[in-house]
């Protein structure tokens, strides 16, 4: 009992020391608060403001009223700033490579003839999807194009030219409108828009980002903070003092980690409070289940931090190792690219990383209302990872100055 009290007293001592140091370390403290805000505002700005007037090259192979109608409709949407100055596809592609234009829209030769014949010609749209968030809205607008035109403008054109054909108008991309026009049609005529997303096949959606951002922010800040908190003691020489005191490695780690658990939970709250109203993210699941998941991810990250600190010889090395750990967390966990599209070896890595499961949990809890036993499927890998890492971290934690 007395030993237990002494042990608690030591944990409390380290906890308080760490908390005071954290509070006094302005830069770190600002980082803890500002990283979530900064990230949310950055992502939020891009998501909320559907960017317009994107530079677009048009290669017209068929001068016709159809073409003119399509182009003016594109202009009216305000997503595109059209230019017809490019004479060849190559020159347009070069411009895209340079980043001067984001889209190449090609209207093929015989476009109007094919429409009138009832075939379904394609307008080819090539999009520079490296900046996928930016082009996302514009692509959505493009996909709407056939159905909008089918309804309004083409009817007019066809009516002027040849009233007999107007009854055959339809749009392949618009099943809803089909019935309204279809009633009198014998053979539907239409065109389609083929979008080629260049460089980045997957477009991130806003729902993907905010739940993902919770895990990314926790990973980014917490691994680094713990790794630095311990290597800092070595670098400043206070480790010699700390190690000569009677705290066991486990007591030291408890005392050092606890403030960061609180910091992590605070960050989660912060992100939720800002993001949910700002991006109108649905919250279908249970709050305590979200916090439980977050708690486990925080623990996982802290143990990684501890592990890094017992390998790193200096704060700089700890920083480098944190970045090394951070990269697969960003790239391989489904935050940026879908896991299904990765090579098998990368998928295996993603299966080790707790953040992968956490992303799944967050999407499940926030968007789908996943609850109870369904969560367990993603919770146990995080738990297992944490336990193993903690075990290795405590084993490798250096009790001496050697």
């Amino acid at each position, binding site marked *: 009992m007395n030993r237990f009290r002494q042990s608690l*007293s030591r944990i409390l*001592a380290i906890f308080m020391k760490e908390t005071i140091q954290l509070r006094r370390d302005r830069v770190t403290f600002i980082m803890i608060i500002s990283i979530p805000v900064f990230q949310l505002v950055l992502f939020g700005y891009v998501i909320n403001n559907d960017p317009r007037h994107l530079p677009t090259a048009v290669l017209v192979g068929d001068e016709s009223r159809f073409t003119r109608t399509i182009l003016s409709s594109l202009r009216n949407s305000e997503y595109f700033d059209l230019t017809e100055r490019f004479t060849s596809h190559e020159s347009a592609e070069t411009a895209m490579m340079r980043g001067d234009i984001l889209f190449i829209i090609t209207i093929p030769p015989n476009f109007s003839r094919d429409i009138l014949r009832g075939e379904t010609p394609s307008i080819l749209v090539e999009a520079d999807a490296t900046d996928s968030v930016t082009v996302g809205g514009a692509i959505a607008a493009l996909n709407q194009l056939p159905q909008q035109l089918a309804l309004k403008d083409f009817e007019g054109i066809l009516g002027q030219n040849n009233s007999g054909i107007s009854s055959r108008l339809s749009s392949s991309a618009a099943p809803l409108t089909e019935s309204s026009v279809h009633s009198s049609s014998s053979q539907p005529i239409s065109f389609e828009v083929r979008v080629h997303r260049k460089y980045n096949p997957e477009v991130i959606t806003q729902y993907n980002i905010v739940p993902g951002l919770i895990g990314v922010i926790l990973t980014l800040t917490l691994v680094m903070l713990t790794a630095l908190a311990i290597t800092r003691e070595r670098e400043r020489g206070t480790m010699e003092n700390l190690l000569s005191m009677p705290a066991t490695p486990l007591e030291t780690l408890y005392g050092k980690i606890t403030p960061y658990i609180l910091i992590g939970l605070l960050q989660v709250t912060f992100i939720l409070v800002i993001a949910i109203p700002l991006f109108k993210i649905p919250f279908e699941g249970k709050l305590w289940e979200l916090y439980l998941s977050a708690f486990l991810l925080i623990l996982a990250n802290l143990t990684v931090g501890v592990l890094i600190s017992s390998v790193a010889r200096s704060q700089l090395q700890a920083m480098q190792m944190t970045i090394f750990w951070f990269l697969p967390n960003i790239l391989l966990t489904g935050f940026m690219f879908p896991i299904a599209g990765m090579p098998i070896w990368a998928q295996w890595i993603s299966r080790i990383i707790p953040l992968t499961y956490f992303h799944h949990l967050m999407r499940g809890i926030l968007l789908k209302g996943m609850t109870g036993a369904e969560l367990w499927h993603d919770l146990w890998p995080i738990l297992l990872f944490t336990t193993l890492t903690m075990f290795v971290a405590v084993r490798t934690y250096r*009790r*001496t100055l*050697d």
Partner: protein
Amino acid sequence: MNKSTLSEKNPMSHAESNYISHPTDDLVIDVHGLTKRYGKHTVVDHLNMQVRRGEISGFLGPNGSGKTTSLRMMCGLITPDAGTGTCFGYDILSQREAIKQRVGYMTQKFSYWEDLTVLENMEFVARMYSIPDRRRAIQQALRELGLESHQYQRTATLSGGWKQRLALAACLLRKTELLLLDEPTAAVDPQARREFWDELHRLASQGVTVLVSTHLMDEAERCHRLSYIAYGKLLAFGTAQQIIEQQKLITWSVRGSNLALLSERLKQEPCIQDAVIFGADLHVIGFDESQIHQTLEKYTKEQLCTIEHYMIIRTTVEDVFIYLMKKTHEASAPTGGKP
């Protein structure tokens, strides 16, 4: 005590003979053959050391001789490459945690948290050692080192001496049975130094054991017992008086003109170990009384540097230590003569 006749040839023998003569004493520290290597460099070389309960044991040696390394090994901060030992009967290799409960170690380099205030640092220590009646104990320790008025000050903003006082106060606060102090009074002013040593003696009289490294000879003379190491080897062990007697060094105080030149000349004489100027006096150290007498006599007739007057005085521990260090250095580097 067995006063070895081999003393001049083998300084180790003194340390060993003293150590063997008290094997059954109440030993708080008892280490044998402690060895630490960094790369090819053997920093501590088969060190034996015993410290008895309630004793203030001084640990002396030139810079880089391995004092800090030895202290770190004794409190389990670094692992020795060879050797065994106990601290309070606990094995220094396998029972580190038990040792740490009972040892207060003060590092040579200041190692308290600079972003905490003085008081916060003290509270941290008090909690770590579960000190009863924490507030009062802290205030008392602060008062003893005159730190009361600085207690709300950030440690980073303290002057060097005040930082050292904080480390001392934290040491006194721990109330552990053994204090390992690595140059505790470096940068502390003489008055605070004296008060701290008074405090150490008070603690020792209550049964606290102290092993303290120092470069200051007045502090060495306040220790019950001294260990002197150089190049990682224990060269002398015993009370200050014993160490002086063991070496059989004789010191003359010489007065004369042009002492600088005189000391240069005397150092060249084979029978003289050292000649050091102390203000108007030159201390000449050696073994063979009659030979040195003759040599000094010779210089009374010199032109450039003349001895006017000389007499035998008490040899100091400092003289002995410097002699010991030079001797080991020459032994380990046989090609080099006198510097």
